[in-house]
């Protein structure tokens, strides 16, 4: 035990003497949270929609008043007057405006006559996000215009009443579990992967191998140290990320305890996986090359950004054996749903079994000689 604690002591002292290492392993996930969270999570605002009015009747005026209301309130778009449909189409094509709505001649008359009135909507569908947002906004405006002025006493249409179990989750909060998992992964990759191979290349391990330390003490010493570093990163990111994302729930003692359990289990799993991958590697370039590949291979199939249900079958299989899947599922269950230990028990079990199994496989593969 004394020899194992010496390995842990050495690793931790080295870690705390390298502030750049700590900053880098925390900075990247935080940046990812802030940049991706804000880039993908926000509503579309400030777009421009050209209005070509060939009608000028009362219903056209009503429609334009609705556009003005949107521009002032939810600010999805503002209307720009066009005299010619051709010019409006050209400006959509060249990107001067994002869409154009055409109010045809006789539009008001057809509305009053209930003679299938139509509005033209020219949209730049090369940008799926903006076009979807504008189409959605226009559809709700049209639905509002179609609604009868006096509501019938008994409605005949079917209505879906949505009950949301949890408070509104914006994309920043949705990404927080991924960010915490990513911080742990980076810490393991740098602290457990790159530094381990660098130490091997520098001959530090040669120094260990001539001492009476056993294979078990060496493997577990290195892995416990790696897991401690990942736990520290995970806890720091949980606190900082929660403050950035506005998730105060994390400071509840029970939530914090659940998070800590999951962070420890996740750190053991990540570290075991990394040690198994690196146990026979000697070239310092290998972990650097693997960093990006593993990031894509493990993070994206985990359901961190998109639900696993939308994946093809082979990616769903990958997500089943991916420790990221369970770390992120567990974090989401705690942070976004307050699911308690019941919701994360399978995640904890998988991560612990995965971590211990990888370590048990890696230990005999570890060479006690050069």
């Amino acid at each position: 035990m004394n020899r194992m604690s010496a390995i842990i002591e050495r690793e931790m002292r080295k870690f705390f003497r390298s502030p750049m290492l700590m900053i880098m392993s925390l900075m990247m996930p935080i940046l990812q949270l802030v940049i991706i969270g804000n880039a993908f999570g926000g509503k579309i605002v400030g777009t421009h929609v050209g209005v070509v009015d060939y009608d000028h009747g009362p219903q056209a005026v009503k429609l334009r008043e609705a556009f003005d209301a949107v521009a002032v309130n939810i600010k999805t778009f503002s209307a720009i007057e066009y005299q010619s449909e051709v010019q409006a189409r050209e400006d959509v094509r060249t990107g001067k405006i994002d869409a154009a709505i055409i109010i045809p001649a006789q539009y008001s008359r057809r509305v009053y006559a209930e003679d299938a009135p139509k509005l033209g909507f020219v949209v730049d569908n090369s940008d799926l996000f903006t076009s979807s947002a504008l189409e959605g906004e226009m559809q709700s405006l049209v639905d509002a215009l179609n609604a009868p002025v006096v509501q019938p006493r008994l409605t005949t249409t079917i209505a879906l009443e949505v009950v949301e179990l949890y408070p509104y989750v914006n994309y920043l909060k949705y990404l927080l579990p991924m960010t915490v998992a990513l911080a742990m992964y980076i810490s393991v990759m740098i602290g457990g992967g790159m530094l381990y191979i660098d130490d091997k290349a520098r001959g530090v391990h040669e120094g260990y191998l001539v001492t009476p330390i056993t294979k078990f003490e060496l493997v577990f010493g290195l892995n416990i140290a790696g897991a401690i570093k990942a736990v520290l990163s995970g806890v720091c990111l949980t606190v900082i990320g929660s403050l950035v994302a506005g998730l105060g729930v994390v400071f509840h003692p029970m939530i914090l305890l659940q998070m800590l359990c999951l962070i420890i289990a996740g750190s053991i799993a990540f570290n075991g996986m990394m040690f198994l991958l690196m146990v026979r590697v000697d070239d310092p370039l290998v972990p650097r090359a693997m960093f990006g590949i593993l990031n894509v291979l493990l993070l994206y199939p985990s359901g961190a950004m998109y639900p696993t249900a939308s994946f093809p079958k082979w990616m769903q299989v990958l997500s089943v054996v991916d420790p990221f899947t369970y770390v992120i599922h567990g974090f989401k269950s705690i942070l976004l749903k307050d699911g308690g230990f019941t919701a994360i028990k399978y995640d904890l079990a998988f991560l612990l079994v995965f971590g211990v199994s990888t370590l048990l496989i890696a230990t005999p593969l570890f060479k006690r000689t050069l």
Partner: protein
Amino acid sequence: MSAASNQFPANGNGAPRPVAIAVEHIWKRYGDFEAVKDVNFSVTEGEIFGLLGPNGAGKSTLIRMMTTLIPVTKGKAIVGGHDVSKDPDDVRRIIGVIPQALTSDQDLTVYENLSIYAKLYSVPRGIREKSIAEVLEAVDLTEWRDAQTKTLSGGMRRRLEIARGLVHNPRIFFLDEPTTGLDPVSRIAVWEMLNKLKATRNLTMLLTTHYMEEADKLCDRIAIVDHGNLVALGTPVELKNSVAGANVVEVKFDRDDEAWPGRLEGMEGVTSVQPEGSGFYRVITKSGSKTTMQIVELAASLGETLTSLSVQNTTLDDVFIHYTGRQLRDEQVKPVFSMPPRPGARP
């Protein structure tokens, strides 16, 4: 192999000292490549034993087998009475090892580096502090105890490595090229320190080196290793005496001539002639003064001019040439990579 190989230094009573390291018919193969071939030698307690040879000769492979770092392919190595293949942990407990590279943690202090190794060697808590203080004193690093390793000079870092290898008070000390990369002043300081350690701690030391001077000044006995073979073994004096000539005459003729080697070899007392190029020759002779006179007379009779002429005693360099057929320094400067010829260029 030299005839002196089986003669061990005696202790004060005249009786042979106990053997600390015994290497018996040891081989190391990497696939088809034989890095060490059937090497035999013994090191007695309290002795400083040197493995001398160029880079790639097999010195580090030998030391790595003896320190349990790599498995032995064939043969046996007994260190401190323990077989390195059968009882590696027992061997590790009684040896100290200084690797070729400087591997102390730069981010840690001198004390922290030593403390971690004291724990790795299971030095009891009660004597850990005393042991660290003693080794720091022995390597003159006491006042640098709390300095970060990265602030130390190369020589001081090497001394820290030596202290690290001594922190558990080993009986046998292995040093793999302990002065490589050090400036001459630091190198001499390390030699003095190793001699002091030998005297005060009764350590058996086995070191590898490619510095002739280091082997000559530091080692009680030297084994010359070349291409995985042990080609000579003995004390520095024995090895020098084993070379047929007692003196080396270095002569440089103004004009090079293919006939010079034959003329020089024909002189009385000359045992070998080594052409060094551009009219420069190293002549091994039994009598330096007589050969010098003969060379001067020969040059005068032929109307040739001598650019330089000097006489010196046999050195380990000459011993190395004698046993391996080439100079050690030739091996040191051999390029690792040479540019391929330019296409179309004349050789």
